């Protein structure tokens, strides 16, 4: 990328509108070009300094003078006081109220409808054979995990795996198995 191209892309870069690849190319150029780097810094500095100026509040007497010229009563009743609300806010609030009303209506419809809410949970009855099968599966899992632990211990003792790899695995496995053993002798 040339300095000319960098200069052209600077505005989009400062406003964060550059595509990622162009940004990468620009940054690469900036890394190697002190003049362009300085240019970017200057622009950023000016941008920040101008942001500090901020909006200048209009004195009230200017507005009162305008209202006087237009023969508008400054104290005439209006829902909006100066500086409090903006045009378009009424519409915005209307949308908010409409959304709230819609949510309330939908909620009411759900509550009133005969099939509202979740159906009560049905108590499922298991047969003895099913319970026995589940117990067997749990026992098998526990025995398999025990085997894993024994094999791991053996590998550790035989120095097959380095200590620093196995130790955390072993401790985490022991922690995981503790509730399953439920006080049984290991």
């Amino acid at each position, binding site marked *: 990328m040339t300095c000319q191209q960098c200069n052209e892309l600077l505005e989009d870069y400062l406003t964060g509108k550059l595509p990622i690849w162009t940004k990468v190319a620009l940054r690469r150029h900036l890394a190697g070009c002190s003049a362009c780097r300085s*240019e970017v810094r200057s622009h950023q500095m000016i*941008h920040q300094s101008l942001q*500090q100026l901020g*909006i*200048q509040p*209009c*004195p009230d007497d*200017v507005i009162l003078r305008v209202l006087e010229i237009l023969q508008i009563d400054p104290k005439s009743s209006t829902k909006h006081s100066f500086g409090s609300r903006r*045009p378009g806010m009424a519409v915005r609030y209307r949308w908010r109220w409409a959304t709230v009303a819609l949510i309330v209506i939908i909620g009411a419809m759900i509550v009133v409808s005969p099939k509202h809410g979740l159906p009560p949970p049905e108590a499922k009855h298991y047969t003895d054979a099913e319970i026995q099968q589940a117990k067997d599966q749990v026992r098998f899992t526990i025995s398999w995990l025990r085997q894993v632990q024994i094999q791991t211990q053996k590998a550790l003792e035989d120095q097959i795996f380095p200590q620093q790899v196995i130790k955390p695995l072993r401790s985490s496995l022991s922690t995981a198995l503790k509730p399953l053993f439920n006080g049984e002798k290991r």
Partner: protein
Amino acid sequence: MNQSQFKIHVAHFKDVIYSHAYYFMGNAADAADITQEVLIKLWHHFEKIPAAALKSWVFKVTQNACIDFYRQQNNQALPWPSDDADGDSSEAVPADKELNPETVVINLDLREHIMKAIQRLPPLLRHVIIMREIHNLKYEEIAASLDIPLNSVKVYVHRGRKLLCRYLKALYS
């Protein structure tokens, strides 16, 4: 437009108009007069302005009022910047290598100096810089308000910042 609608619009736009005029003219008295003029125009023309274009219209009228005031005070044609990108090459910052942003920013009366620097900008650049940097308008909004192409806005913002940098540097050197 009824009075209540007008008051809502006044409440929304008064600071925007006043700020623009204040930073453009550099003094509160002119800014107050311009604000007054624009608000009175708003009252008279509101019915003809589409709601979506109201913001753009307000900025356009404010700019015109500022330029009228500027002409009255300076009694001269406006020095519009040329469209040629290198047109102000003589004004371009020669090399910012020696410009250290920290030395420029760290000061006690930065605001005053920035105000002075803004006053030195050509009117069109001044409008663009105020709209972009102080009112945070999008490029599209600035282009619509000034009736200029989008790319020109980007060029003017860039050129305006460069000039401001040069002026501030001159103030501190």
